[in-house]
C-alpha cells in the first residue's frame, strides 16, 4: 500500500528498506517493484544492481500500524467488528451487516469504492471464515469471481495456509501443492507427518472449525445510526441529529428498563476521518436532554475541535455500557432528587475537565498512611463508603494535608529513638515545643519475598513548633538496627 505522503513519481518502483544485521534489506515493495522481481529480504545493493531507478524510503512499521488504525476507524462504518491483522490487513466481521448494503457483493463493491480513495492496490475478499477471506485476498488471482468460494479456495497454493516455510516445502516435495490436494486426504496421517497445526489451519480455512476475529473494540450494547444522502457541513446540524438519536436511544432504553453509563457519539466525515465524543455518567441515565448537555460539554472541551471539512455523511450514537435503571420514586425529603442533581453536576464537570479531575475518597484497609485513602474518579463511585470514627476525646492523630512523597527534612534529634528537637523544612527552622510519639508503623513485610528486606520501619511523631504549627514527621528506619543514620521526613500538616 502506497502512503499518501510519499511524493515519488507514480511509475518509479518503490521499496521500503530496513537495517537487518548491518545491511540494508528490503522490507516491503510496491506492486511495480514486485513485478520487477524485487522481494522482501533482498539486499538493497542487489536490488539497485537489478533496477537502477529505484525509489527508496525507510521502513516505518509504527507509521504503517497508525495508518492501518486510521483505516480501521474508517471501516467502522461497515461493521462495528473490525480487527487489525498486522502488518497489512484488516478483517471485518460482516455477520448480520451485509443486508444493510444489499448483500455481500454490493458491500464488497462499497468497500472497494471507499478504499480506492487511499490506494490503488487493495485486495478484497469475502469468506466464510477470517482465514478463508485472507487466503482469498492474498492468493486468489485478480479477477476471480467468488461465486464458488470453496472451489476457489481449493485451487489456492498451500502457502495460503500461512504455515511455516519448512512445512510448506515439505508439502510441495510430497506433491501436495494446493489446498484441494490437502483437503482430499484424511487428516490423521497429515497431522502425523506435518503436525497438528497444519490440520488446524486447514480446518479453519475451509470452515470446518469455528474461527472468529478479535475486534479492536467490543460491539456496543446499543447503537443508533443515521446516514445522510448529502454530507452535512455544520457541526450544529450534526449535533441536532445526535439529539434525535439520543431520543431514539431513550425510547429503547426505557423499554428495556436500562440506562447508559457510557455514551459515544461518532462523526464519520465523508473523506473518511472520524471524530469521537465520549461521555460517562456516574448513575445510569437515558434522559436525552442531559445526555446532549454532556456531549455539548465534551464538544466545547475538545483540544482538537471537530472539523466538518467536506461534511459528515454518517453519525452514530453508541451505548457501550448499560445498567438497569428503574423509574425513580420521588422521596418526600427530596433525597433522591438531591443525589441525582449531585450526580449530574459530577458528570458535567468530569466530562468537561476529564474523569480524573473530580474525585471521591475511598477507604482502603491499609496501615500505611499514604495507602489508607484513595481518591478515585467520582463518576466510578456512586456508593459512598463508611469511614472509621476517630477516637473520642483525643486530638487528631492523622494530618489534614498529606505529602506524597514525604518531604525530607534536616533534623536534630535524640538517638537512638528520641524525639526531634528542631528541624529545618523549606528553608526555615522549626523548634519543637510539644511532641507525641513515636507511633511505629512497620513496613509491609508480608508483601515481600522471604529473605528480602521488606523496607524500613517508620517512627511517627506529632510535633508542634514554637509558632503553633503542627506537623507529622517520621524517622525512616530504626537507628543503628536498620540504618546507621536514618533520614527524617515531614509527611503531613495538622490543622
Amino acid at each position, binding site marked *: 500500500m502506497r502512503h499518501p505522503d510519499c511524493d515519488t513519481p507514480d511509475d518509479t518502483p518503490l521499496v521500503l528498506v530496513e537495517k537487518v544485521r548491518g545491511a540494508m534489506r528490503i522490507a516491503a515493495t510496491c506492486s511495480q517493484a514486485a513485478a520487477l522481481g524485487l522481494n522482501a529480504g533482498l539486499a538493497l545493493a542487489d536490488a539497485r544492481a537489478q533496477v537502477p531507478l529505484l525509489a527508496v524510503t525507510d521502513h516505518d512499521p509504527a507509521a504503517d500500524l497508525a495508518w492501518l488504525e486510521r483505516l480501521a476507524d474508517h471501516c467502522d462504518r461497515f461493521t462495528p467488528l473490525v480487527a487489525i491483522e498486522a502488518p497489512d490487513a484488516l478483517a471485518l466481521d460482516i455477520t448480520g451487516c451485509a443486508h444493510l448494503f444489499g448483500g455481500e457483493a454490493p458491500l464488497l463493491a462499497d468497500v472497494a469504492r471507499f478504499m480506492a480513495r487511499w490506494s490503488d492496490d487493495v485486495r478484497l475478499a469475502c469468506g466464510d471464515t477470517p482465514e478463508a477471506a485472507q487466503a482469498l485476498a492474498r492468493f486468489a488471482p485478480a479477477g476471480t469471481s467468488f461465486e464458488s468460494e470453496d472451489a476457489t479456495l481449493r485451487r489456492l497454493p498451500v502457502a495460503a495456509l500461512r504455515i511455516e516455510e519448512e512445512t510448506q516445502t515439505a508439502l510441495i516435495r510430497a506433491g501436495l501443492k494446493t489446498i484441494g490436494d490437502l483437503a482430499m486426504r484424511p487428516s490423521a496421517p497429515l497431522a502425523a507427518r506435518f503436525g497438528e497445526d497444519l490440520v488446524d489451519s486447514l480446518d479453519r480455512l475451509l470452515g470446518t472449525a469455528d474461527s472468529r476475529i478479535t475486534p479492536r473494540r467490543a460491539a456496543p450494547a446499543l447503537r443508533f445510526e443515521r446516514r445522510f444522502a448529502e454530507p452535512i457541513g455544520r457541526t450544529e446540524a450534526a449535533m441536532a441529529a445526535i439529539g434525535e438519536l439520543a431520543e431514539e436511544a431513550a425510547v429503547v432504553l426505557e423499554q428495556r428498563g436500562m440506562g447508559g453509563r457510557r455514551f459515544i457519539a461518532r462523526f464519520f466525515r465523508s473523506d473518511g476521518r472520524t471524530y469521537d465524543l465520549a461521555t460517562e455518567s456516574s448513575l445510569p441515565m437515558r434522559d436525552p436532554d442531559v445526555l446532549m448537555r454532556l456531549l455539548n460539554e465534551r464538544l466545547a472541551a475538545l483540544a482538537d475541535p471537530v472539523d466538518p471539512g467536506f461534511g459528515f455523511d454518517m453519525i452514530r450514537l453508541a451505548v457501550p455500557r448499560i445498567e438497569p435503571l428503574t423509574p425513580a420514586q420521588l422521596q418526600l425529603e427530596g433525597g433522591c432528587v438531591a443525589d441525582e442533581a449531585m450526580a449530574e453536576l459530577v458528570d458535567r464537570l468530569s466530562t468537561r475537565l476529564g474523569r480524573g479531575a473530580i*474525585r471521591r475518597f475511598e477507604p482502603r484497609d491499609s496501615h500505611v498512611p499514604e495507602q489508607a485513602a484513595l481518591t478515585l474518579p467520582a463518576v466510578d463511585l456512586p456508593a459512598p463508603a463508611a469511614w472509621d470514627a476517630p477516637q473520642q476525646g483525643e486530638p*487528631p492523630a492523622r494530618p*489534614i494535608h498529606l505529602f506524597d512523597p514525604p518531604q525530607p527534612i534536616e533534623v*536534630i534529634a535524640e538517638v537512638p529513638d528520641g524525639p526531634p528537637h528542631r528541624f529545618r523544612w*523549606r528553608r526555615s527552622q522549626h523548634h519543637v515545643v*510539644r511532641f507525641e510519639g513515636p507511633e511505629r508503623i512497620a513496613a509491609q513485610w508480608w508483601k515481600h519475598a522471604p529473605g528480602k528486606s521488606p523496607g524500613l520501619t517508620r517512627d511517627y511523631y506529632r510535633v508542634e513548633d514554637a*509558632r503553633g504549627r503542627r506537623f507529622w514527621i517520621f524517622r525512616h528506619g530504626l537507628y543503628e538496627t536498620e540504618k546507621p543514620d536514618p533520614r527524617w521526613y515531614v509527611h503531613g500538616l495538622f490543622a
Partner: protein
Amino acid sequence: MSRADSLESLKTRIAGIERARAVEAAVLAGTGHAGIDAALGGGLARGRVHEVFAAQAEDAGCAAGFVAGLALRLGLRLDGTLVWLREIQAEKQGGRLHAPGLVEIGLDPARVIIGVLPDPQAVLRAAADVVRCPEVGVAVIELWREPRLLDLTASRRLALAAETSGVTVIALRIAASPSPSAAQTRWQVSAAASAPMEANAPGYPAWRVELLRQRGRPSGGDWRVEWNREQACFANADTASDCGPDAGGFAAIAAAPSGAVLPFSAGRPVDAPPRLRHAG
C-alpha cells in the same frame, strides 16, 4: 394612562426586579464561639461568600482545618455535600487532602467531592457550576497566590450565584494578600499553640483567627479558637497556655529521657558517623 400612573407602574416593576435580587435575610450559622458570634451578629451567613486567608503559606494546613470546621458549622454536620476545588499545583506544594485527617476534624469524607484542576481558570469555571447547583451544601474554592482572573467581577459573580442558589462558598486563599472582593466576611487564620495534653503532647487544633472585614457590620476582632470535634464547634482557646515565639521549648524537652542529640541531614547520608553535638 397618565404620566404619574406610568411612573408608578415603572416603579413597582423596578421594585419587583430589585426584590428578586435583593439580599434576603441570610440564615445564620453560629460558630459556637461566643466572641465571634457576637461580632458577626449571630453567626456566619449561609448562601454567601466567605474568604479565609492563610496568614502565611506555611499556614495552609491550619487554614484547611479551619475551613473544614466552618463547613461543619455551616450545616455539613447533618446533610449536604462539600465540594472542594483546588489546583494540581496546590496538591503538589501543600500536600493532598487526606481523608483520615478530615475524619479527625469530624467531616465525613464520603460527603466530600474534590476537584483537582489544572489551573486557576479551571477552578473558577468549575466553581461557577458548583455554586449554581443548590444541592451542594458548601463549596470550598482553594486558590494559591493571586490569580489575575479572580478580580472583583469574578468574586461578585460568585457572590450572586451563591445568593441565588443558597450554596455557601468559602474561598480559601493561600499565599495571597487580601484585596477588595464581594465576600460577606474575610478572615485571616494563622496557627496558634494548642493547649497541651498529658506529657506535653500537642492538643486540639487551635488557630488565631482575625476578622478582617465584614459587610454591614463593624469589622475587627482577634480571637484564639480551638476546635471541639465531639460537639463540632469552635471554643475559646485563651485558657490555653500561651507560648510565644522561640519560647523555651527546649526546657520542656530537656527534661525528656536522656540520650545523645544528633543532626540528621536531609541530603545524602554522610559516610562518617555523625558528630556528637550534645549529651543530655
